[in-house]
Every structure is written in C-alpha cells, then in structure tokens.
C-alpha cells in the first residue's frame, strides 16, 4: 500500500489524478496545483474537491447571496450574521435566538427515512454549535403528485424519519409545510429548520485560536458513511485490494445525538470550549479547515487517532466521511481533563486529534507521515466563485400571458359550493394532521402554538413569558410565474404568519431550492428570487441571518419549480398575548383586513379545478404587509382580537374553514358590496388576514384600523354549526371536516 504523502506528491508531479471523477473542473485542479506549488496529495485532492463542491462552496450562488449583506436593513437585533453555522438574533431580556433552515433533498429521495432523519440531525447540530439549546424543529416538505405510487414510498418514509429522529431528540415539531406538485416527483424537497435559545454571553463561534489548544473530536465513531464518491480516490491510491464499496447513505442515531446535545450544553456551561464546529457535509475536512480558516494560526491533526467504526477506512475516507452525530471542539490544554470527564458522564467518546499551531497551515498526519499541508482558507473560504450566465427563459412571457383570471368560473352557487369542497379536499389544501400527529409537539413543555396554527410559538423564559414564533412559507407556483415576486410572496406570507400570532417579526432564514445552475433559465430564476428576497427584507426591516442553497433539484433536463422557502422568526414579550387561529365563541365578529383583488394566477383554485399554472402571481405591497403586521401585533398586545388567521393559498374560504374547524364553530359570511363571491372566496391577494373581534372591542379595533389606513371589512359573525355564505351556499362543519381531513389518511394511511 503506498501512502500519498506530501513528500511523495512533490516528487511525483506527473502522477495522474482523478480530479474529474471527484467533480473538479480542469481549471479548478490547476488552481489547487498553483496554490500548493505542487500536485495535491490524494488526501488534499479529496478535501479540495468536496469543499469546492457546489454544496460546500456556494460557488454558483455566492455572487447573488452577497445582496443579503449589501442590502441588509439596519437592525440592532442581529448579533451574528451570515457566515457562521447559523445567525443569532437578540430577542431581549438577555436572550439570543438562533435558527436556520437547511435542505436534505437528494438523500431523502434515495433513502427517505434516513435522508430525512439525518437532515434533522444536521440542522440541530448547526444550532447546537452556536452555543444554543435547540428548542424546536420545523419541516417544510415538497413531494410529487399525492397519488403517484412513488410518493407512497417517499412521503411515509420522510415523515417517519423526521418524527423518528426529532421525537427521539426531544424537540417539539411546531410547524412546517406539505406541498404536492408533479414537479417534485423525482426530486422531493426535504427542508428542516431548528431554533435554539441561549444567553448572549453563551454565543460560540467556529474558530480555532490559541496555539497549543487541543482539537477534540467527540461523538460517534467515524464510519464509511456518505463517501461514495471519494472511494474512487481511495481505490486509486490504494492497491488492487482497495477498500470495499462504501455506502453513500448516512444512517442517523438520534440517541447518540441526544447525548451529544446534553453533553455539549454541559461543556458550554462550564466554559470548556473555545471554538466549536459540527461535522456535517464533508465531515472532518470541513470542520478542520473551517475552524482553522476562521481562527488565527494553523492546525495539526493526527488522523490515526480518530476513533473508527470501520478499521479499513483510508485516510482520504476518514477526512471525507459524513458519519453523523460528531462535533469538533477547540479546548485549552488545562481544560481537557474536565472536558473528557463530562463526555464520559454522557457516554460520549472524545479524542484529542490534534492542536492549534503557530503557523498558518492545516497539516494532517497519518502514521507519522504528512498527507496534508494546505493554507486552510484556500480550502474553506476561498473556493471558486462563478458568474454563471443567466437569462430569462423563452417560455416566461407565454406562461405569464396564459392568464388564470380568464379561466372559466363556477356558473352557479351550487357549482361554487362544489368547488369550495373540491379545493378544500385537494391534497395541498387538506389537513396535514395525519402527518403532524406523528410528531411530538409537546415535549419540553414550552409549546404555546404548533401546527396547524399560523406559526409555531415556544416560550423561552418561564418567569417572564418571553416567547419566539417561527413560520416557514414558500410557493413554487408563484415563483415559477415570477421569481422576483414569488420570493417576496414567500417572505410576506411567512412574515404575516408570525404577525398573525401576535409576534413581532425580527429576522429571516431561507432555503433556496432550485434546479441546475448550469441552466441559464434556472440561474435567472435564482438571481431574480434572491434579488426579490433581498429587496423584500430591506423593505420589511428583517435581515437574512443565514440559510442554505440547494441546486441541481431536477429530473433529467426538467427543473423543479423554483422554491425559495422563507422562515421568519418573531418575538413576543408575553406568550399570554398570543393570538390563536380558532373561532372559539359564537358571536365573535369577523373582519377581513386588507384588500381583495381579482388574483387567481398560481392559485390553489386554478390548480385543483383547471390543472392550470399561468398568469401572474398576486401583487406584493410590502408597506401594506408591514401595516397589517403592526395592526395584528397591536391588536394582540391590547387584547382587541380573539383569533387571527392569515390568508394565503386557497384564499379566504380556506382560512375561514380552518378557523371554524379548529374552534368547532360555524360562521355566517356576507359578501361585501361590489365583490364577486367567487373572487371574494378564492382570490389569493396578499396582505390579508381574517380576525375574530369580540363585540366589546369592535369600535376600538375599527378605529385603530381606520386611523392607520388599513382597510377592515366586516364580513360576518361566528355563528351556528356551518359555514353560511349568504346568498350562495351553506356547508355543515361535519361536511367541511370530512372533506378537509379525509384526503391525506385515505392516500397514505
């Protein structure tokens, strides 16, 4: 067996290397040679190839993501911005909150259970690495057609994986999304979000400083997970007897992760950690190079000391392994003994694998021989940057010209009633409780609101009742019709959802799910969506704290709908003031806030009734969204409303049905003068919400709306056991309930 040492590499400049198989381009390989002044060793090649991959380096998206910083609104709340494992926001009373949403799309298609489970595990470690206790998770999901046979494989596996992992960690699942569309058939989207809480002084960063400090790897042993591609390299470097085929699939062990969480929090409590990084994609390569790159000084690692699950792993594979449930900490020498004691207490294996050095190099040794000698920044932070060409697709104009507002509408009240039920029972609009009931939403005993409420809300301080709310939204149909507007609509909806529960939106995270960046049309969608999102965040005053980009979501040549998922985090000073969505009492007055226009492009109605996607998405008015949010927050604070529910896909009728069913009360609805009942019920105009106002507060509430210029229309009253739209139809709660709740269990139960 010949080890490809640094020395050997310098002596054999002409050895052919499998850079192409590892996904590097010729010029990238040349650049590595230029950086090192020689050919890379096998281990170095492995590190560069994986760290310069799209997934780790953001090489196609970087130039666009810059706007999130350049256009960032002034915001004192932002304690840690983009670039760290997750952003951190000041929520007052000395508390800081960190949150982030990430994708695990491709693994979840190959192995739905493990793919989704390890997606949750990965995002939780990101949050933990910031110094925070994880307090909740959410799961925005997209699947192919609900009735497609493969969806019956993917969805139950994904849901069981998210539940299996998250439930076992003791993290309440407080919300998410489930969307079906044929465009995700061969490429489901599994995004996972985690929120964590800490005190300001507990914030930790991923950087290695202080020469002589120890590098400690702790958590699970390292196995051959997720290194399929690098085996190419291993088999090149090793003789004919090369290692066995390695699994590309990572398997999660939530029990191990739970121990890792408790152990890490105890390490933080005793101030034993100088810097910390979780191990996710690209494993040790990523953790060591990022820690060294962000810190001062270099790092020396003895790779032989890494505890292995599989003794046959090559050094390249150890560097690449994506085995789950591992963390890497920088610890002062005097604190190592205590660090080890705490790990032992939690049955967590911990090993000193190296130390921070004076120099500026990342040096890795194997059996005493040097196999890596690189400037860490060139691996971690100075990867290639592409200015990919982009162009508005040729079909975009035609798509927008195919106006949904011209589709045939229901000709009679009976037909309108029929369509209401049909849209309500469609997989996208149907109740997702069959799915969400598989998630623990009560654990930790701080859940104030969870699905199906507009946003999830958890209490973070028992004595003051301080709480945070989070919602995620994204509409691929809108974004396909107009990526700039679609991204803003995702932001606006998520923002509105947070405000609807009474919380003040503070900051956002996002997961940008798109097709191949090598397709100029997709790249245009991406450029437009990021521009829209950055402009939107500036207008709303909510900075982007971090996020994730997932590209190459496509089947063959066909990309998914561009799907930016936006998560908004809000704060509420007293969770007692939260606004739920249920109509709980007969006699409550119903007000529609905002304006309804004829906007059916991309709507649920156009999809369900006409299988149509065309025209323009609803218009966005961010000033209006801000005003609406202020009204919703003020009304919650001053006890002027009993319930609120935002209007989004499915329109007013969807929101009314959900709030009626949640409270077990009917409603009598009057169509406002001059509005077409169909448009009134099904239009998806943005910037709207329905609220239930107690009679005693009506005047105060309408005065407030009037004074601030927010249109508020009285549309009815909570009443009876059915939804009555006067002059049109009535539908009993029972009939609504069976339409709404029957669909998903019938498909997957």
């Amino acid at each position: 067996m010949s080890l490809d040492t640094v020395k050997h590499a310098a002596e054999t400049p002409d050895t052919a290397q499998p850079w192409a198989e590892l996904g590097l381009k010729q010029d990238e390989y040349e650049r590595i040679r230029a950086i090192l002044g020689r050919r890379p060793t096998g281990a170095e090649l492995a590190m560069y190839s994986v760290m310069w991959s799209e997934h780790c380096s953001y090489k196609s998206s970087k130039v666009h993501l810059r706007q999130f910083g350049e256009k960032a609104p002034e915001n004192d709340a932002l304690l840690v911005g983009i670039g760290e494992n997750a952003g951190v926001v000041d929520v007052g009373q000395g508390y800081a909150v960190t949150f982030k949403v990430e994708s695990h799309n491709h693994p979840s298609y190959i192995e739905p259970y493990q793919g989704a489970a390890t997606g949750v595990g990965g995002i939780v470690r990101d949050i933990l690495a910031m110094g925070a206790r994880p307090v909740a998770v959410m799961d925005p999901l997209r699947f192919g057609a609900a009735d497609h046979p493969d969806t019956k494989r993917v969805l139950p596996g994904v849901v069981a994986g998210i539940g299996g992992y998250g439930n076992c960690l003791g993290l309440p699942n407080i919300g998410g999304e489930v969307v079906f569309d044929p465009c995700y058939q061969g490429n489901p989207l599994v995004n996972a979000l985690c929120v964590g809480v800490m005190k300001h002084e507990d914030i930790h960063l991923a950087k290695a400083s202080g020469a002589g400090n120890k590098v400690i790897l702790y958590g699970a042993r390292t196995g051959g997970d997720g290194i399929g591609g690098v085996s190419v390299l291993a088999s090149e470097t090793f003789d004919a007897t090369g290692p066995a085929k390695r699994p590309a699939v990572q398997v999660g062990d939530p029990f191990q992760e739970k121990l890792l969480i408790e152990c890490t929090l105890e390490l933080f409590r005793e101030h034993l950690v100088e810097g910390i990084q979780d191990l996710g994609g690209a494993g040790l390569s990523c953790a060591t190079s990022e820690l060294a790159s962000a810190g001062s000084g270099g790092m020396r690692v003895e790779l032989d000391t890494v505890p292995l699950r599989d003794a046959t792993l090559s050094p390249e594979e150890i560097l690449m392994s994506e085995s789950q449930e591992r963390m890497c900490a920088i610890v002062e020498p005097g604190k190592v003994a205590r660090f080890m004691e705490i790990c032992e207490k939690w049955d967590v294996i911990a090993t000193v694998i190296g130390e921070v050095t004076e120099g500026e190099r990342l040096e890795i040794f194997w059996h005493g021989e040097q196999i890596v000698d690189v400037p860490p920044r060139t691996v971690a932070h100075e990867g290639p940057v592409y200015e990919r060409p982009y162009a508005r697709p040729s079909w975009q104009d035609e798509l927008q010209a195919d106006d949904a507002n011209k589709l045939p509408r229901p000709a009679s009240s009976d037909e309108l009633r029929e369509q209401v039920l049909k849209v309500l029972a469609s997989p996208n609009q149907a109740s997702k409780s069959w799915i969400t009931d598989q998630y623990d939403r009560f654990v930790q005993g701080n859940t104030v609101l969870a699905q199906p409420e507009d946003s999830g809300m958890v209490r973070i301080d028992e004595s003051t009742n301080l709480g945070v709310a989070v919602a995620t939204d994204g509409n691929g149909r809108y974004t396909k019709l107009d990526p700039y507007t679609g991204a803003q609509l995702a932001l606006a909806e998520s923002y509105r959802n947070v405000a609807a529960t009474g919380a003040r939106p503070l900051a956002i995270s996002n997961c940008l799910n798109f097709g191949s960046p090598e397709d100029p049309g997709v790249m245009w969608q991406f450029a437009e969506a990021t521009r829209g999102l950055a402009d939107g965040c500036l207008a709303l005053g909510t900075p982007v704290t971090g996020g994730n980009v997932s590209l190459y979501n496509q089947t063959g040549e066909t990309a998914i709908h561009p799907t930016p998922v936006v998560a908004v985090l809000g704060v509420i000073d007293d969770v007692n003031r939260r606004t739920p969505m249920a109509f709980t009492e007969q006699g409550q007055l119903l007000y529609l806030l905002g304006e309804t226009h004829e906007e059916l492009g991309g709507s649920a109605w156009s999809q369900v009734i006409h299988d149509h996607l065309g025209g323009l998405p609803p218009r966005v008015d961010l000033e209006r969204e801000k005003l609406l949010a202020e009204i919703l927050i003020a009304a919650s604070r001053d006890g002027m409303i009993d319930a609120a529910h935002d209007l989004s896909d499915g329109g007013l009728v969807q929101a009314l049905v959900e709030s009626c069913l949640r409270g077990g009360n009917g409603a009598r609805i009057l169509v406002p003068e001059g509005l077409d009942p169909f448009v009134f019920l099904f239009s998806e105009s943005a910037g709207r919400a329905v609220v239930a106002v107690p009679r005693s507060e009506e005047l105060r509430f309408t005065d407030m709306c009037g004074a601030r210029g927010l249109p508020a229309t009285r549309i009815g009253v909570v009443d009876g056991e059915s939804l009555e739209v006067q002059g049109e139809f009535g539908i009993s709660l029972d009939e609504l309930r069976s339409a709404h709740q029957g669909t998903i269990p019938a498909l997957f139960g």
Partner: protein
Amino acid sequence: MARVVVDVMLKPEILDPQGQAVQRALPRLGFEGIADVRQGKRFELEVQGPVDEAALARIHEMAETFLANTVIEDFTVRVES
C-alpha cells in the same frame, strides 16, 4: 404449510445503533466476551402450496423489493426444516 424465513440485516458497513446499544449494555449486565452485536429483522412466512424453485424465486423477489431495503440492508432466504 411450509415456513420460509427471510433474515434482513443492515449491511456490514452501515451503522447499527441498536446493535451497538445492546453490545454496550452487555458488560454492565455481567456478560463479557461478546465482541460485536448486530440487530436485524426476521420474517417468518407461511407459504401455501409447494415451496419449489418458482416459489423461492418469488420470495426472493419479495425480499429484494419489499422486505429489505437493499440500499442499506442485505437479506437471506431459507426454507425452515
């Protein structure tokens, strides 16, 4: 009726947290000398009709497509005597 047994085990290179948890508990219970534990599934199928080549071929297919997840698991099929 004949019984066919399908054993499904995680592939050797795949992490087996269950087996590991069992193994780690053994010394505490006073059982020494077990170097490794892997935990898998055992399916007992009661087969109607003769268990001939054709029947076994079908069961093999069933194991491959349904009982085992061959992305992460191996399986064996055998007739129980």
